[in-house]
Protein backbone atom coordinates (compact mmCIF):
# COMPACT_ATOMS: atom_id res chain seq x y z
CA UNK A 1 0.00 0.00 0.00
CA UNK A 2 2.82 2.33 0.92
CA UNK A 3 4.64 1.50 -2.29
CA UNK A 4 1.55 2.13 -4.39
CA UNK A 5 1.06 5.49 -2.74
CA UNK A 6 4.69 6.32 -3.32
CA UNK A 7 4.51 5.37 -6.99
CA UNK A 8 1.35 7.39 -7.41
CA UNK A 9 3.01 10.38 -5.78
CA UNK A 10 6.02 10.00 -8.06
CA UNK A 11 3.79 9.98 -11.12
CA UNK A 12 1.91 13.03 -9.88
CA UNK A 13 5.16 14.83 -9.15
CA UNK A 14 6.39 13.97 -12.60
CA UNK A 15 3.30 15.67 -14.03
CA UNK A 16 4.19 18.82 -12.12
CA UNK A 17 2.24 18.32 -8.92
CA UNK A 18 4.31 20.17 -6.34
CA UNK A 19 2.30 18.88 -3.44
CA UNK A 20 3.21 15.34 -4.45
CA UNK A 21 6.88 16.27 -4.71
CA UNK A 22 6.76 17.90 -1.30
CA UNK A 23 5.23 14.74 0.12
CA UNK A 24 8.03 12.65 -1.39
CA UNK A 25 10.59 14.95 0.19
CA UNK A 26 8.84 14.47 3.53
CA UNK A 27 8.94 10.71 3.09
CA UNK A 28 12.59 10.50 2.14
CA UNK A 29 14.38 13.41 3.79
CA UNK A 30 15.29 11.36 6.85
CA UNK A 31 16.70 8.33 5.04
CA UNK A 32 18.54 10.35 2.42
CA UNK A 33 20.01 12.57 5.11
CA UNK A 34 21.12 9.50 7.07
CA UNK A 35 22.56 7.88 3.98
CA UNK A 36 24.65 11.00 3.43
CA UNK A 37 25.50 11.32 7.12
CA UNK A 38 26.81 7.75 7.35
CA UNK A 39 28.71 8.14 4.12
CA UNK A 40 30.39 11.39 5.14
CA UNK A 41 30.21 11.42 8.94
CA UNK A 42 29.69 15.16 8.66
CA UNK A 43 26.33 16.74 9.38
CA UNK A 44 26.88 19.85 7.32
CA UNK A 45 28.01 17.85 4.32
CA UNK A 46 25.11 15.44 4.82
CA UNK A 47 22.62 18.27 4.82
CA UNK A 48 24.12 19.74 1.65
CA UNK A 49 24.14 16.36 -0.05
CA UNK A 50 20.55 15.64 0.94
CA UNK A 51 19.43 18.95 -0.46
CA UNK A 52 21.33 18.34 -3.68
CA UNK A 53 19.76 14.89 -3.99
CA UNK A 54 16.25 16.31 -3.86
CA UNK A 55 17.05 19.15 -6.21
CA UNK A 56 18.51 16.68 -8.68
CA UNK A 57 15.48 14.45 -8.26
CA UNK A 58 13.30 17.47 -8.99
CA UNK A 59 15.31 18.23 -12.12
CA UNK A 60 15.24 14.63 -13.30
CA UNK A 61 11.62 13.87 -12.54
CA UNK A 62 10.70 14.00 -16.19
CA UNK A 63 13.07 11.15 -16.87
CA UNK A 64 11.74 9.01 -14.04
CA UNK A 65 10.18 5.85 -15.40
CA UNK A 66 7.19 4.94 -13.20
CA UNK A 67 7.63 1.29 -14.11
CA UNK A 68 10.55 1.29 -11.71
CA UNK A 69 10.30 1.83 -8.01
CA UNK A 70 10.75 5.38 -6.84
CA UNK A 71 12.77 4.48 -3.77
CA UNK A 72 15.39 2.74 -5.91
CA UNK A 73 15.59 5.81 -8.10
CA UNK A 74 16.02 8.32 -5.29
CA UNK A 75 18.45 6.09 -3.38
CA UNK A 76 20.50 5.72 -6.52
CA UNK A 77 20.68 9.49 -6.84
CA UNK A 78 21.64 9.60 -3.17
CA UNK A 79 24.45 7.07 -3.49
CA UNK A 80 25.77 8.78 -6.61
CA UNK A 81 25.74 12.16 -4.93
CA UNK A 82 27.66 10.77 -1.97
CA UNK A 83 30.22 9.33 -4.37
CA UNK A 84 30.42 12.65 -6.20
CA UNK A 85 30.94 14.43 -2.90
CA UNK A 86 33.70 12.02 -2.00
CA UNK A 87 35.38 12.53 -5.36
CA UNK A 88 35.25 16.30 -4.89
CA UNK A 89 36.60 16.20 -1.36
CA UNK A 90 39.17 13.52 -2.13
CA UNK A 91 41.54 16.11 -3.45
CA UNK A 92 41.71 17.59 0.00
CA UNK A 93 42.19 14.39 1.93
CA UNK A 94 45.48 13.92 3.64
CA UNK A 95 44.87 10.34 4.66
CA UNK A 96 45.06 7.48 2.22
CA UNK A 97 41.54 7.36 0.76
CA UNK A 98 42.04 3.79 -0.40
CA UNK A 99 42.43 2.53 3.11
CA UNK A 100 40.90 -0.94 3.20
CA UNK A 101 39.87 -0.84 -0.38
CA UNK A 102 38.29 -3.84 -1.98
CA UNK A 103 40.71 -6.74 -2.16
CA UNK A 104 42.81 -5.49 0.74
CA UNK A 105 40.83 -7.14 3.45
CA UNK A 106 43.78 -9.36 4.28
CA UNK A 107 45.56 -6.31 5.65
CA UNK A 108 42.60 -5.19 7.70
CA UNK A 109 44.12 -5.97 11.05
CA UNK A 110 47.30 -4.08 10.31
CA UNK A 111 45.46 -1.03 9.09
CA UNK A 112 43.04 -1.17 11.97
CA UNK A 113 45.97 -0.31 14.24
CA UNK A 114 45.79 3.23 12.88
CA UNK A 115 42.30 3.56 14.31
CA UNK A 116 43.01 2.96 17.95
CA UNK A 117 42.11 6.50 18.90
CA UNK A 118 38.68 6.19 17.39
CA UNK A 119 35.86 4.59 19.28
CA UNK A 120 32.67 5.02 17.32
CA UNK A 121 31.03 2.82 14.75
CA UNK A 122 30.93 5.85 12.49
CA UNK A 123 34.69 5.99 12.54
CA UNK A 124 34.90 2.35 11.63
CA UNK A 125 32.50 2.94 8.78
CA UNK A 126 34.56 5.81 7.53
CA UNK A 127 37.59 3.58 7.38
CA UNK A 128 35.94 1.11 5.11
CA UNK A 129 36.25 1.67 1.40
CA UNK A 130 33.30 3.49 -0.05
CA UNK A 131 32.01 0.29 -1.68
CA UNK A 132 31.89 -1.57 1.61
CA UNK A 133 30.56 1.43 3.48
CA UNK A 134 27.74 1.80 1.00
CA UNK A 135 26.48 -1.76 1.35
CA UNK A 136 26.65 -1.59 5.14
CA UNK A 137 24.63 1.62 5.17
CA UNK A 138 22.04 0.40 2.71
CA UNK A 139 21.57 -2.88 4.52
CA UNK A 140 21.85 -1.94 8.18
CA UNK A 141 20.81 1.69 8.36
CA UNK A 142 18.31 1.93 5.53
CA UNK A 143 17.20 -1.69 5.98
CA UNK A 144 17.17 -2.66 2.33
CA UNK A 145 17.37 -6.26 1.26
CA UNK A 146 20.03 -7.55 -1.08
CA UNK A 147 17.80 -7.52 -4.14
CA UNK A 148 16.94 -3.87 -3.54
CA UNK A 149 20.58 -3.03 -2.98
CA UNK A 150 21.52 -4.76 -6.21
CA UNK A 151 18.96 -2.70 -8.07
CA UNK A 152 20.17 0.56 -6.57
CA UNK A 153 23.85 -0.18 -7.03
CA UNK A 154 23.29 -1.73 -10.44
CA UNK A 155 25.29 -4.77 -9.42
CA UNK A 156 24.56 -8.50 -9.51
CA UNK A 157 22.95 -9.64 -6.28
CA UNK A 158 25.78 -12.11 -5.84
CA UNK A 159 28.32 -9.27 -5.85
CA UNK A 160 26.30 -7.32 -3.32
CA UNK A 161 26.12 -10.33 -1.05
CA UNK A 162 29.84 -10.98 -1.27
CA UNK A 163 30.66 -7.33 -0.68
CA UNK A 164 28.34 -7.22 2.32
CA UNK A 165 29.96 -10.28 3.89
CA UNK A 166 33.42 -8.82 3.49
CA UNK A 167 32.29 -5.46 4.84
CA UNK A 168 30.89 -7.11 7.95
CA UNK A 169 34.08 -9.05 8.49
CA UNK A 170 36.05 -5.83 8.27
CA UNK A 171 33.68 -4.11 10.67
CA UNK A 172 34.01 -7.01 13.09
CA UNK A 173 37.77 -6.69 12.91
CA UNK A 174 37.70 -2.95 13.46
CA UNK A 175 35.20 -3.02 16.29
CA UNK A 176 37.01 -5.95 17.87
CA UNK A 177 40.24 -3.98 17.86
CA UNK A 178 38.49 -1.24 19.75
CA UNK A 179 36.89 -3.58 22.20
CA UNK A 180 33.49 -2.26 21.30
CA UNK A 181 31.92 -5.69 21.22
CA UNK A 182 33.00 -6.20 24.80
CA UNK A 183 31.49 -3.02 26.14
Amino acid at each position, binding site marked *: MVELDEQALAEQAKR*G*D*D*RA*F*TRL*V*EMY*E*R*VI*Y*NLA*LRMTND*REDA*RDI*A*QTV*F*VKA*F*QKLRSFDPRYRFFSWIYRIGVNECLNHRARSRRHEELDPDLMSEGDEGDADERACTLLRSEA*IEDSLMNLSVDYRTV*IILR*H*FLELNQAEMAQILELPEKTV*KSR*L*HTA*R*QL*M*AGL*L*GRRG*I*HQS
Partner: protein
Amino acid sequence: MNRKDFERIANDELDGAASPAESEVLRRHLAESADAREEFEALREVFLKLDNAGLEEAPPGLRQSVLHATVAQRREMTPVNRNDWVKAFLGGLLQVPNLRGAMTFASGLGVGAAAIAIVTGSLVGGRHVEIPGMTGTMAPPRSESAGRILDSRTLELNGIKVTADTRRTADGVILRIETTGTGAGGAKITAAFDRGALLPVTLRMDPRSADEFEIGESSLWFTLSGAGVHTLTLRNESAHSAPLDLELRAGEEAVRASLRTDFSESR
Protein backbone atom coordinates in the same frame (compact mmCIF):
# COMPACT_ATOMS: atom_id res chain seq x y z
CA MET B 1 32.69 -26.73 6.80
CA ASN B 2 35.09 -24.69 4.71
CA ARG B 3 35.80 -21.03 5.30
CA LYS B 4 33.72 -19.75 2.40
CA ASP B 5 30.65 -21.74 3.41
CA PHE B 6 31.01 -20.63 7.02
CA GLU B 7 31.04 -16.94 6.08
CA ARG B 8 28.07 -17.34 3.76
CA ILE B 9 25.93 -19.35 6.15
CA ALA B 10 26.86 -17.23 9.18
CA ASN B 11 25.82 -14.08 7.35
CA ASP B 12 22.65 -15.68 6.05
CA GLU B 13 21.81 -16.90 9.54
CA LEU B 14 22.13 -13.40 10.99
CA ASP B 15 20.27 -11.95 8.02
CA GLY B 16 17.48 -14.43 8.62
CA ALA B 17 18.04 -15.92 5.19
CA ALA B 18 19.54 -19.30 6.09
CA SER B 19 17.51 -22.41 5.40
CA PRO B 20 16.70 -24.79 8.31
CA ALA B 21 19.27 -27.22 6.95
CA GLU B 22 21.96 -24.53 6.78
CA SER B 23 21.12 -23.36 10.30
CA GLU B 24 21.58 -26.90 11.55
CA VAL B 25 24.94 -27.25 9.79
CA LEU B 26 26.06 -23.97 11.30
CA ARG B 27 24.87 -24.97 14.77
CA ARG B 28 26.90 -28.18 14.60
CA HIS B 29 29.96 -26.34 13.33
CA LEU B 30 29.77 -23.78 16.13
CA ALA B 31 29.44 -26.57 18.69
CA GLU B 32 32.63 -28.12 17.39
CA SER B 33 34.82 -25.03 16.87
CA ALA B 34 35.70 -22.42 19.47
CA ASP B 35 37.25 -20.19 16.81
CA ALA B 36 34.07 -20.31 14.77
CA ARG B 37 32.00 -19.46 17.85
CA GLU B 38 34.18 -16.45 18.58
CA GLU B 39 33.99 -15.27 15.02
CA PHE B 40 30.25 -15.77 14.86
CA GLU B 41 29.75 -13.81 18.09
CA ALA B 42 31.87 -10.96 16.72
CA LEU B 43 29.74 -10.94 13.60
CA ARG B 44 26.55 -11.01 15.64
CA GLU B 45 27.87 -8.05 17.61
CA VAL B 46 28.38 -6.13 14.37
CA PHE B 47 24.78 -6.79 13.41
CA LEU B 48 23.54 -5.67 16.80
CA LYS B 49 25.62 -2.51 16.84
CA LEU B 50 24.71 -1.52 13.32
CA ASP B 51 21.04 -2.38 13.54
CA ASN B 52 20.68 -0.50 16.80
CA ALA B 53 22.51 2.58 15.63
CA GLY B 54 19.25 3.99 14.32
CA LEU B 55 18.60 6.98 12.15
CA GLU B 56 18.96 10.60 13.10
CA GLU B 57 16.20 13.03 12.41
CA ALA B 58 16.67 15.17 9.35
CA PRO B 59 17.90 18.62 10.33
CA PRO B 60 15.24 21.27 10.84
CA GLY B 61 14.75 23.34 7.74
CA LEU B 62 16.04 20.76 5.28
CA ARG B 63 12.66 20.42 3.65
CA GLN B 64 12.28 24.17 3.44
CA SER B 65 15.73 24.46 1.92
CA VAL B 66 14.79 21.89 -0.69
CA LEU B 67 11.60 23.75 -1.51
CA HIS B 68 13.50 27.00 -1.72
CA ALA B 69 16.17 25.45 -3.92
CA THR B 70 13.64 23.89 -6.26
CA VAL B 71 11.96 27.25 -6.62
CA ALA B 72 15.32 28.70 -7.58
CA GLN B 73 15.89 25.81 -9.96
CA ARG B 74 12.54 26.38 -11.58
CA ARG B 75 13.44 30.02 -11.99
CA GLU B 76 16.52 29.00 -13.92
CA MET B 77 14.96 26.13 -15.79
CA THR B 78 11.55 27.35 -16.92
CA PRO B 79 11.54 29.28 -20.15
CA VAL B 80 9.04 32.03 -20.57
CA ASN B 81 6.05 30.63 -22.38
CA ARG B 82 5.77 33.22 -25.05
CA ASN B 83 3.15 31.32 -27.00
CA ASP B 84 0.82 31.58 -24.04
CA TRP B 85 1.40 35.28 -23.93
CA VAL B 86 0.57 35.73 -27.59
CA LYS B 87 -2.54 33.58 -27.28
CA ALA B 88 -3.72 35.50 -24.27
CA PHE B 89 -2.98 38.81 -25.96
CA LEU B 90 -4.86 37.93 -29.11
CA GLY B 91 -7.62 36.20 -27.18
CA GLY B 92 -8.18 39.34 -25.14
CA LEU B 93 -8.40 41.51 -28.23
CA LEU B 94 -10.83 39.16 -29.96
CA GLN B 95 -13.17 39.34 -27.02
CA VAL B 96 -13.77 43.05 -27.73
CA PRO B 97 -16.48 43.18 -30.47
CA ASN B 98 -15.52 46.58 -31.91
CA LEU B 99 -12.00 45.44 -32.47
CA ARG B 100 -12.82 42.32 -34.40
CA GLY B 101 -13.12 44.09 -37.74
CA ALA B 102 -9.99 46.06 -37.20
CA MET B 103 -8.12 42.91 -36.30
CA THR B 104 -8.05 41.81 -39.95
CA PHE B 105 -5.78 44.73 -40.76
CA ALA B 106 -4.19 45.35 -37.43
CA SER B 107 -3.41 41.78 -36.50
CA GLY B 108 -0.82 41.41 -39.22
CA LEU B 109 0.89 44.61 -38.23
CA GLY B 110 0.40 44.22 -34.49
CA VAL B 111 1.33 40.58 -34.24
CA GLY B 112 4.32 41.17 -36.45
CA ALA B 113 5.54 43.99 -34.25
CA ALA B 114 4.82 42.00 -31.11
CA ALA B 115 6.64 39.00 -32.49
CA ILE B 116 9.72 41.09 -33.27
CA ALA B 117 9.61 42.59 -29.82
CA ILE B 118 9.24 39.22 -28.16
CA VAL B 119 11.96 37.58 -30.19
CA THR B 120 14.37 40.38 -29.49
CA GLY B 121 13.43 40.37 -25.86
CA SER B 122 12.51 44.02 -25.81
CA LEU B 123 8.98 43.33 -24.68
CA VAL B 124 9.60 40.49 -22.27
CA GLY B 125 11.90 42.14 -19.83
CA GLY B 126 10.78 40.96 -16.44
CA ARG B 127 12.26 38.26 -14.32
CA HIS B 128 9.94 35.41 -13.88
CA VAL B 129 9.94 33.48 -10.67
CA GLU B 130 7.79 30.49 -10.30
CA ILE B 131 7.14 27.23 -8.68
CA PRO B 132 5.62 24.70 -11.11
CA GLY B 133 2.27 25.36 -12.66
CA MET B 134 2.56 28.92 -13.83
CA THR B 135 3.98 30.25 -17.02
CA GLY B 136 4.15 33.56 -18.79
CA THR B 137 5.71 36.90 -18.17
CA MET B 138 3.83 40.16 -18.62
CA ALA B 139 0.84 38.09 -19.59
CA PRO B 140 -2.60 39.60 -19.15
CA PRO B 141 -4.41 38.48 -16.02
CA ARG B 142 -5.29 34.83 -16.27
CA SER B 143 -6.77 32.21 -14.04
CA GLU B 144 -4.98 33.38 -10.93
CA SER B 145 -6.79 36.69 -10.98
CA ALA B 146 -10.08 35.33 -12.27
CA GLY B 147 -11.05 33.84 -8.92
CA ARG B 148 -13.67 35.35 -6.70
CA ILE B 149 -12.20 38.02 -4.44
CA LEU B 150 -12.42 37.06 -0.80
CA ASP B 151 -10.78 40.05 0.77
CA SER B 152 -8.68 43.09 -0.04
CA ARG B 153 -6.44 45.33 2.01
CA THR B 154 -4.08 48.23 1.38
CA LEU B 155 -0.95 48.86 3.43
CA GLU B 156 0.95 52.13 3.20
CA LEU B 157 4.28 52.96 4.77
CA ASN B 158 6.87 55.62 3.93
CA GLY B 159 5.55 56.16 0.42
CA ILE B 160 5.21 52.47 -0.30
CA LYS B 161 1.77 51.25 -1.17
CA VAL B 162 0.88 47.58 -1.12
CA THR B 163 -2.51 46.39 -2.26
CA ALA B 164 -3.21 42.76 -1.46
CA ASP B 165 -6.20 40.58 -2.10
CA THR B 166 -7.11 36.97 -1.66
CA ARG B 167 -9.07 35.12 -4.32
CA ARG B 168 -10.85 31.82 -4.25
CA THR B 169 -9.83 29.07 -6.66
CA ALA B 170 -11.16 25.57 -7.18
CA ASP B 171 -8.81 24.06 -4.64
CA GLY B 172 -7.37 26.92 -2.67
CA VAL B 173 -6.55 30.59 -2.51
CA ILE B 174 -4.44 33.05 -4.44
CA LEU B 175 -2.74 35.91 -2.67
CA ARG B 176 -2.09 38.77 -5.05
CA ILE B 177 0.23 41.54 -3.91
CA GLU B 178 0.68 44.70 -5.93
CA THR B 179 3.32 47.17 -4.87
CA THR B 180 3.69 50.77 -6.00
CA GLY B 181 5.59 53.79 -4.81
CA THR B 182 9.06 55.09 -5.30
CA GLY B 183 10.20 54.29 -1.80
CA ALA B 184 9.78 50.56 -2.10
CA GLY B 185 13.50 49.78 -2.21
CA GLY B 186 14.58 47.59 0.69
CA ALA B 187 11.12 47.12 2.10
CA LYS B 188 10.09 43.61 3.04
CA ILE B 189 6.74 41.93 2.72
CA THR B 190 5.88 38.86 4.74
CA ALA B 191 2.78 36.75 4.28
CA ALA B 192 2.11 34.18 6.98
CA PHE B 193 -0.48 31.48 6.61
CA ASP B 194 -1.77 28.51 8.54
CA ARG B 195 0.49 25.58 7.76
CA GLY B 196 -2.21 23.04 8.51
CA ALA B 197 -4.73 24.71 6.24
CA LEU B 198 -2.76 25.94 3.24
CA LEU B 199 0.16 24.64 1.22
CA PRO B 200 2.21 27.01 -0.97
CA VAL B 201 2.22 25.76 -4.54
CA THR B 202 3.31 28.43 -6.96
CA LEU B 203 4.92 31.82 -6.69
CA ARG B 204 4.94 34.28 -9.51
CA MET B 205 6.92 37.49 -9.25
CA ASP B 206 6.37 39.79 -12.13
CA PRO B 207 8.17 41.86 -13.28
CA ARG B 208 11.67 41.92 -11.81
CA SER B 209 10.99 43.54 -8.52
CA ALA B 210 12.08 41.24 -5.76
CA ASP B 211 15.75 40.65 -5.16
CA GLU B 212 15.42 38.24 -2.28
CA PHE B 213 12.65 35.92 -1.36
CA GLU B 214 12.02 32.82 0.67
CA ILE B 215 9.04 30.57 0.69
CA GLY B 216 8.53 28.20 3.55
CA GLU B 217 5.86 25.91 4.86
CA SER B 218 3.96 28.68 6.57
CA SER B 219 5.27 31.94 5.22
CA LEU B 220 6.57 33.86 2.25
CA TRP B 221 8.74 36.92 2.36
CA PHE B 222 10.45 38.99 -0.26
CA THR B 223 12.19 42.30 -0.48
CA LEU B 224 11.05 45.00 -2.86
CA SER B 225 13.12 46.95 -5.30
CA GLY B 226 10.31 48.61 -7.19
CA ALA B 227 6.75 48.29 -8.33
CA GLY B 228 5.39 44.88 -9.20
CA VAL B 229 2.66 42.31 -8.98
CA HIS B 230 3.25 39.02 -7.21
CA THR B 231 0.95 36.06 -6.83
CA LEU B 232 1.25 33.20 -4.40
CA THR B 233 -1.00 30.23 -5.00
CA LEU B 234 -1.96 28.16 -2.00
CA ARG B 235 -3.85 24.92 -1.93
CA ASN B 236 -6.29 23.91 0.76
CA GLU B 237 -4.85 21.15 2.88
CA SER B 238 -7.92 20.71 5.06
CA ALA B 239 -11.46 21.97 5.53
CA HIS B 240 -10.10 24.24 8.21
CA SER B 241 -9.27 27.79 7.16
CA ALA B 242 -7.57 30.69 8.85
CA PRO B 243 -6.82 34.29 7.89
CA LEU B 244 -3.60 35.14 6.12
CA ASP B 245 -1.43 37.72 7.85
CA LEU B 246 0.44 40.30 5.84
CA GLU B 247 3.19 42.60 7.05
CA LEU B 248 4.93 45.45 5.24
CA ARG B 249 8.15 46.41 6.95
CA ALA B 250 10.61 49.22 6.21
CA GLY B 251 13.37 49.39 8.77
CA GLU B 252 11.91 49.43 12.25
CA GLU B 253 8.45 50.40 11.09
CA ALA B 254 5.80 47.93 10.03
CA VAL B 255 2.12 47.84 9.19
CA ARG B 256 0.01 44.71 9.20
CA ALA B 257 -3.29 43.38 7.96
CA SER B 258 -5.19 40.11 7.87
CA LEU B 259 -6.97 38.76 4.82
CA ARG B 260 -9.67 36.16 4.71
CA THR B 261 -8.93 32.89 2.93
CA ASP B 262 -12.51 31.69 3.12
CA PHE B 263 -15.88 33.40 2.95
CA SER B 264 -16.93 31.92 6.26
CA GLU B 265 -14.11 33.54 8.20
CA SER B 266 -14.45 36.64 10.26
CA ARG B 267 -11.48 38.91 10.25
